């Protein structure tokens, strides 16, 4: 019988005390465990940043890649072996900044994988510069001056790019995050889980207390769950273009809600053919046997020579 601890390694963890990364790490391990996956069936990919160390703490195949480049490497591995459960983790700077091209490119393909982004508004590992999601005009404690550029909206970008499962969760609500991750992993297609996360060391604005609404007159938590408001982001009939437009539209509008009220939960999802399905249409054998298990070493190339003779 597998236990939760089978997904843990003995590697020393040097994240700051109170870091939101711990919540994400725990949720990832719990989600994989509860989905009854075996560690060797899973591969986790990360970029560079505090979050980049995540694979070292999870006992699965683990790839700590380059800054912003986890998605291409994860894509190559998944396409080589579609039987693997592939999860990529990274920071907001990693995924929405330096890796933005891959973020969009990967969504367009609708590869069957899950992308978990630690979104805390700052570059923690380099000591607190503004990340691509920090709203314009904000100044966290180590910034010399307020941000003078617009923050990117990752959820709207993901929907436009073609991600077929777009959700947001919160690092300190491990239960919600775990359930969201499980749904994302089970989803066939590219799933983005943007995780709002505190950085107690460098982001002194979006703190645990801020998310809890301590500064508001109502003292009401800023975060609310979409599913508790009757919101339904799931497309029921992918062939119904009206429904698709409507669901995309409501999700994009909702993704801009920020301030005193911040929605978390599933914004949008749709079932569409994955990249693997599309490849299988071109190569029937691809569907039946993972590429890595096919015999590639007894190919007869003589017809190719003949065609040039």
């Amino acid at each position, binding site marked *: 019988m597998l236990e939760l601890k089978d997904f843990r390694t003995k590697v020393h963890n040097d994240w700051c005390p109170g870091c939101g990364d711990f919540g994400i790490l725990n949720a990832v391990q719990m989600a994989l465990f509860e989905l009854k996956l075996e560690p060797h069936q899973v591969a986790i990919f990360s970029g560079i940043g505090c979050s980049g160390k995540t694979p070292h703490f999870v006992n699965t195949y683990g790839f700590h890649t380059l800054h912003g480049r986890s998605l291409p490497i994860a894509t190559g591995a998944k396409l*080589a072996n579609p039987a693997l459960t592939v999860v990529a983790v990274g920071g907001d700077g990693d995924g929405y900044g330096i890796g933005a091209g891959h973020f969009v*490119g990967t969504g367009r393909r609708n590869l069957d994988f899950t992308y978990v982004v630690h979104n805390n508004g700052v570059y923690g590992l380099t000591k607190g510069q503004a990340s691509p999601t920090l709203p314009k005009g904000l100044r966290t404690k180590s910034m010399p001056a307020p941000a003078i550029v617009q923050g990117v909206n990752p959820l709207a970008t993901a929907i436009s790019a073609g991600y077929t499962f777009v959700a947001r969760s919160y690092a300190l609500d491990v239960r919600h995050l775990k359930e969201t991750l499980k749904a994302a992993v089970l989803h066939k297609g590219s799933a983005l889980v943007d995780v709002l996360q505190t950085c107690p060391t460098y982001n002194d604005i979006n703190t645990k207390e801020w998310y809890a609404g301590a500064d508001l007159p109502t003292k009401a938590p800023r975060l609310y769950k979409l599913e508790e408001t009757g919101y339904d982001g799931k497309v029921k009939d992918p062939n119904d273009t009206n429904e698709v437009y409507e669901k995309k539209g409501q999700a994009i509008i909702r993704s801009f809600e920020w301030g005193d009220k911040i929605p978390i939960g599933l914004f949008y999802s749709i079932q569409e053919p994955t990249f693997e399905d599309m490849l299988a249409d071109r190569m029937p054998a691809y569907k039946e046997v993972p590429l890595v298990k096919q015999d590639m070493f007894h190919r007869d190339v003589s017809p190719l*020579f003949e065609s040039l003779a």
Partner: protein
Amino acid sequence: MGRPDVNLYPVPYQDVLLGALKETGHEKELSKYQVMANTVAFGASVALIDYDFDIIAEAIREGFTGRKAALGELNVRAARHGYDYMRKTFQDGFAYKLHPVPSKEKRMVIRGVQAVGIAKFKAGCAFQTYYPITPATDESEYLENHQRDYNIVVVQTEDEISAVLMATGAAHAGVRASTSTSGPGFCLMAEGLGWAGHTEAPGPVVILYQRAGPSTGLPTRSEQGDLQFVLHAGHGEFPRMAIAPGDPVECFYDTFDAFNHAERFQMPVVVIADKFLASTYRTVPIFDTSDLKIDRGQMLSEADLDARPLYRRYEFTPLGVSPRTIPGTRGGIFHTTGDEHDELGHITENSENRVRMMQKRMRKLELAAEAIPDSKKVNFFGPRQADVTIVGWGSTKGAILDAIQDLEVDGVRCNFLQVRYMSPFPTELVNQYLSNAKRKVLVENNYTGQLGGLIREHTGIVMDYRVLKYNGRPFSQNEVYEGVKDAIKNGTKEVVMAHA
């Protein structure tokens, strides 16, 4: 023109074309069929060299199939009119005649991109990535055209950063993987190449079709300007292999070998070709594949792993290569990182570990050097003792071999050292061939004589003369001949050729 070696043959293309159109009732549509004047010229040229018209008629028909078949017939007729006009009007006997060469051997007409593509299929490559770029794209499209028959995944990526890393991810996941590009794309791959080298990925194989740079340069032209870049691309020090084939035959065998190297020595392998090699047709015997053997290097199965208490992906071994596992294998879990890492693939800044890991990775190049036969590292043509030793690499091979014959006729005895492995560099072999050479003439399609620099770096041997060309065009036989003559007769240290 006033040149005794140039004959002028006036051909009234319009009139000849009109004659052809009249026969089929198309004479009113001259403007529509204007472009067929080219076919008239083609037919006229064929007559001049006394080639068999039936063969070229067949070739024209092959170009116009299906709905275009009628157009093909019209073109054959236009060619025939050009051919007949020439035969009738000029009977002075053109000096050069071409006839089909009878051959028992089965031959084919092949370009570098096709030779590389077929080698990839033969080597078991299952994964190809690319971002569109001249002149490399043809190879990826060739692979994709045969995707269904050979089960190869071909992915057009968002950029070349993604291309090299996606292939690296696939290689780590257990399939043979490659990407193909040209200079600008290879620039974007530099960081990824370092990650592949540092994480000891069993690939990818990168095919670099050099074009004239820098930046956009002469994007459809050829140059040998990226040799030193290939050897140094990426920051820090990591092992890589680099092979430079000189013709489509070597493109085939070197590409095949590259996949074995990548998996045996767990490092990226770059095959350095160029635009000229990529797209120039050559007639060659069908490649013999009977001796080609797949070697996937050391891999552990679940049964192997059962016998081990703990699997270490980066285990220190005497030869530097650690046995690998394929993700998905029970008991084979590994971690890897672009950070310096311990045997388990976890981050460490321990100084002793750093030294051992650097040595482990770099030692694999020595292992590769021992494993590769000398006959593949360099080619040496001509007598061991000669007046002149020509030194070159890559696509200049053909022009140099042809020029050597012309130089012989002039009484200049030549031999030719073609360096094929750039990393690991065949230092001893090059030393052997060059240390006693009388006059060493470097021939390169670039400005700085990059191979000359590399030879000096490894052996201390300095080229006596350099014949260089960097106008984006490949060397011709004449240019090598003239360049070498200029160097040795006039003592010109550096000859720059610039024929278009």
